[in-house]
């Protein structure tokens, strides 16, 4: 874990309201693993007492990129960020996805919203190619399709309005795909997205008997395990305990997670 001042190198819109922000962060980049996140201090919001957490999307040389969307005060204030500006970054934080993938397993990635970001980083690190299930409200909301295909991955798409791929949630093509003669034991699922999707997927994994790793999104304070703002109830060897999403997470195995609402 480090604090590093990162110079903005690039800040480019990639459609559907999302932007990719690339920072020069040699120290943090060198330590990063897929599924980890950074905690960003938004300089243009000096009165904000909390940093903002973002998954690591890309790491190249000494640079680190995140993929984000404006949803409130902080992310709005990030919009005008220009090359050369300096941001204080805390990271890399949390535990990433478990690597390496056990031999003979097909990786299945399931993404909603910004969830494609950590999963793309994961896909680049995985030896085995697999399939990405990605959803969105409409065609334009489907992110990073070309990037995943460029890595040689299959991409299965679902849109709520049916304007692209299957109509409905991403779980629709996923269910179909799993049913068509997969041996559950032969696949391992990695997912990141809205809590609703993580929950739905979690239940499928438990019932369907396949391994699934979920990256959870919780409001955070410190990001390092000190404030206990981000806790999640899990069952570990039969015992319920509260774990910190920022520290023991954000990635948890589906069968351990206890969904309270």
């Amino acid at each position: 874990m480090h604090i590093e001042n990162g110079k903005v190198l690039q800040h480019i819109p990639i459609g559907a309201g999302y932007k990719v922000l690339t920072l020069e962060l040699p120290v943090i980049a060198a330590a990063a693993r897929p599924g980890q996140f950074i905690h960003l201090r938004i300089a243009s919001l000096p009165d904000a007492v909390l940093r903002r957490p973002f998954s690591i999307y890309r790491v190249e040389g000494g640079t680190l990129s995140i993929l984000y969307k404006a949803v409130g005060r902080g992310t709005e204030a990030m919009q005008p960020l220009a090359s050369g500006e300096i941001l204080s970054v805390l990271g890399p934080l949390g535990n990433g996805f478990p690597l390496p993938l056990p031999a003979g397993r097909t990786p299945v990635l399931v993404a909603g919203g910004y969830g494609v970001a950590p999963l793309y980083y994961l896909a680049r690190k995985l030896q085995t190619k697999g399939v990405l299930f990605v959803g969105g409200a409409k065609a334009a909301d489907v992110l990073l399709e070309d990037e995943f295909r460029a890595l040689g991955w299959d991409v299965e798409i679902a849109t709520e309005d049916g304007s692209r791929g299957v109509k409905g949630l991403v779980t629709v093509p996923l269910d179909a795909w799993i049913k068509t003669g997969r041996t559950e034991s032969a696949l391992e699922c990695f997912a990141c997205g809205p809590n609703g999707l993580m929950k739905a997927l979690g239940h499928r994994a438990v019932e369907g008997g396949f391994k699934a790793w979920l990256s959870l999104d919780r409001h955070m304070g410190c990001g390092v395990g000190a404030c206990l703002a981000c806790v999640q109830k899990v069952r570990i060897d039969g015992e319920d305990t509260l774990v910190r999403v920022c520290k023991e997470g954000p990635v948890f195995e589906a069968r351990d997670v206890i969904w309270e609402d």
Partner: protein
Amino acid sequence: MHPKLDINLAGIRMKNPVMVASGTFGYGPEYSGLVDLNKLGAIVVKGISLQPWGGNRTPRLVEVPGGLINAIGLQNPGVEGFCEKYMPFLRKHDLAVIVNIWGKTVEDYAEVAARFSDVEGVHALEVNISCPNLKAGGSAFGTNLEATARVVSAVRARTRLPIIPKLAPNVSDIGAFARICVENGADALSLINSFPAMAINVETRRPVLANVTGGLSGPGIHPIAVKLVYEAAKAVKVPLIAIGGITSAKEALEFIIAGATAVAVGTANFTEPQTALRVVDGIADYLKRHALPSVDALIGSVRL
């Protein structure tokens, strides 16, 4: 000339007057990768109760202008869990370890205090009678003179460690609470805890926090805290640990000039984990610039 930063707080020798506040710095290890604990005057660990406690449901935290509202609900591993998991780590470091304790009954407080009395490496107990996030106990004690007296005297009776009641800000006469704590055996006082506060999501019309209400902390409460420290300093002679909205040496110095012997950094740890270290450096610079020999020379030096 190098100004003396070290202080004597109710018999606890501290290399400098800067501590990290309970609940904002965990139990020590969490920030140790970013902050050299040996450079801090003291750490006040997250509130500990007799038995492990789960705290409130999430969301437990929300940012507001000038600070944040928290309703963690005092989640903690209990006395045993804490001593096993964290004391070995803390003992390895050169800083004062102050354990923040709480209970739901007077007996709880006394029992927790007793348990810590002989724990090696614990330098003092901060008695949290002012947590805004407990239905029973918490600020129910800290806003009632008679209940405050009962808790403090009960704790006093069961431990030889210095005891430091932590006062609630939502009282009309902080001096009266300061006095009753001292009369019942307090060696020092911490003030202040966070303010009872509430945020409502106007779109859903639901409280933002699962606990409905929480405690407000951060820069916005600092001027209120300075006033309370100033009043408490006039009321009692014991050393005061000032807490509330410190983000730099400036706020810490205001507290010391108002009458505090030490200060604790809370919410600012989340914003900039190294805030406490910067406050230490800033105080040293200030003393040099003003040709003051020591922190002691600054305590309560406000000119009226």
